[in-house]
């Protein structure tokens, strides 16, 4: 089965084509275009306009790169949510148009679950992981339990990516700020104490952000502040992930989301995993960030488990939570 997936929950519009072979996912193409505002954060309408401008070209490009014809596509899937309304609607509209034109079935999928499934689908031995999903908007620790992907822990205020971006904006960096903060942190030497906020398996970052801003105003070195932000927030993320693994008795950990590209975060989670005899997995960068291939792959899993969706049902849901999905494709 070949599926084309369209991702458009936030700043990224992406189209991917995947093929199912022996219950594993083969990514045939995965083209990604990220909206970068000239200044400030993402304006949902501006992002949606960007997506509308490029989505048709991206669809053509992804089909060409996959080396298939449009007739070879068996299923169209799209990101149903969660995300920004205008962006979701743009991606869904493109998916519906394609589904009607090609006369192929359509499937709306949960973006967060897609991040987990692409890991299971593309990495050997990744069977039942706890996912640490860290992006701009989302920070969740997810695992399969009793028929659903349960959110064991999540941020109580802002996503870690958002925290990094906000700090970056304060000190005058361009979006996305994470990679630049990672660079600065490499030259940080002095640890400045920051709030470390964990509630059970939940986590909070707004206090840390405020304290970091204070250090900046007091003239502390950017390198030291960046280093301290990373060390504190990533340690807390690693700790809640480990707690979720202990609680759910799982011995695999998977990273996903844009912040998963951060080498320091990868190191920490990898160290934690090896110390507790667990396996550590991280997909390639283009499968970590928002991408169409993961949307396509989740579409395949849902379709194969017997789920069907009419065009009339192919609505979006801005508040589509991870634990609302009935995971019928896993026993």
């Amino acid at each position, binding site marked *: 089965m070949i599926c084309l997936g369209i991702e458009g929950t936030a700043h990224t519009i992406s189209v991917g084509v995947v093929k199912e072979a022996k219950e594993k996912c083969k990514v045939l193409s995965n083209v990604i275009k990220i909206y970068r505002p000239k200044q400030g954060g993402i304006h949902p309408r501006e992002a949606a306009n960007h997506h509308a401008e490029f989505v048709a070209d991206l669809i053509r490009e992804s089909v060409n790169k996959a080396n298939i014809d449009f007739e070879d596509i068996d299923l169209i899937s799209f990101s149903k949510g969660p995300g920004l309304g205008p962006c979701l609607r743009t991606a869904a509209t493109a998916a519906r148009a394609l589904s009607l034109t090609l006369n192929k079935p359509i499937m709306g999928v949960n973006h967060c679950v897609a991040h987990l499934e692409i890991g299971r689908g593309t990495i050997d031995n990744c069977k039942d992981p706890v996912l640490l999903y860290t992006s701009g908007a989302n920070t969740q620790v997810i695992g399969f339990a009793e028929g659903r992907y349960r959110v064991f822990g999540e*941020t109580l205020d802002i996503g870690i990516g958002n925290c990094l971006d906000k700090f970056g904006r304060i000190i005058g960096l361009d979006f996305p700020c994470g990679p630049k903060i990672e660079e600065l942190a490499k030259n940080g030497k002095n*640890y400045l104490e920051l709030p470390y906020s964990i*509630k059970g398996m939940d986590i909070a970052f707004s206090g840390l952000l405020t304290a970091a801003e204070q250090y900046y105003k007091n003239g502390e070195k950017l390198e030291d502040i960046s280093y301290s932000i990373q060390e504190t927030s990533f*340690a807390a993320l690693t700790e809640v992930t*480990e707690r979720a693994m202990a*609680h759910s008795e799982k011995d695999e950990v998977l990273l996903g989301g844009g912040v998963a590209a951060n080498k320091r975060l990868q190191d920490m*989670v990898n160290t934690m995993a090896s*110390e507790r005899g667990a396996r550590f997995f991280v997909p390639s960068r283009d499968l970590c960030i928002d991408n169409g291939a993961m949307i396509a792959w989740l579409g395949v899993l849902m379709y194969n488990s017997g789920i069907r969706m009419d065009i009339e049902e192919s609505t979006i849901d*801005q*508040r589509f939570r991870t634990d609302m999905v009935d995971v019928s494709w896993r026993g």
Partner: protein
Amino acid sequence: MAKTIIYRGAEAEICLAHYMGHQVVQKRRIRKSYRIKNIDSRLISYRTREEAKLMTEARLYGVSVPIIYDVDLGNGVITMEYLKGKRIKDILNNLSEKERKRICKKIGESIAKFHNNDIIHGDITTSNMILLNDRVHFIDFGLGEKSSEMETKGVDLHVLMEALESTHSKYANCFDYVLEGYKKEFKGSAKSVINKIEEIVKRGRYR
């Protein structure tokens, strides 16, 4: 002293040991090499001290907790009574509805008892409760704190709500039973704590 590890948690290992002729457990916080030494030492000594303090205090207010024999801040070790009971996590799904209700109400009553005295547990899950002699004992106050705010009490209960939803999802009414017990025992306005929980749920992403 020979030690046998009986449980390896996320941040500590629980060992069986002997202390002045008693069989005891030792909770040893493990150094984590993924985090820098500064953060590691700060967390280990702070949590060990807070945990011992909160457990001792909770006991004074009639909450069942293991008796503490010794605290070693430098190494992050608490030596305490060995409870030969069963984890609530392991038994809750197998009880009759009536019994499950009774146990959940007890849990709620105990939480109210420590909340009445501004003790926040910080990690109320069914893995952190042990049933022994028909009493629900609370363990692992490692993320606890003292706070009189409705907000922190709400967050404390919210953690349990999430734990029940993820581990005991077939028995959706467990948390209602817990709240029933809580209302009975809580001295302040239980209603405003419960309102807080609803507020916290709504504050979560995509609610």
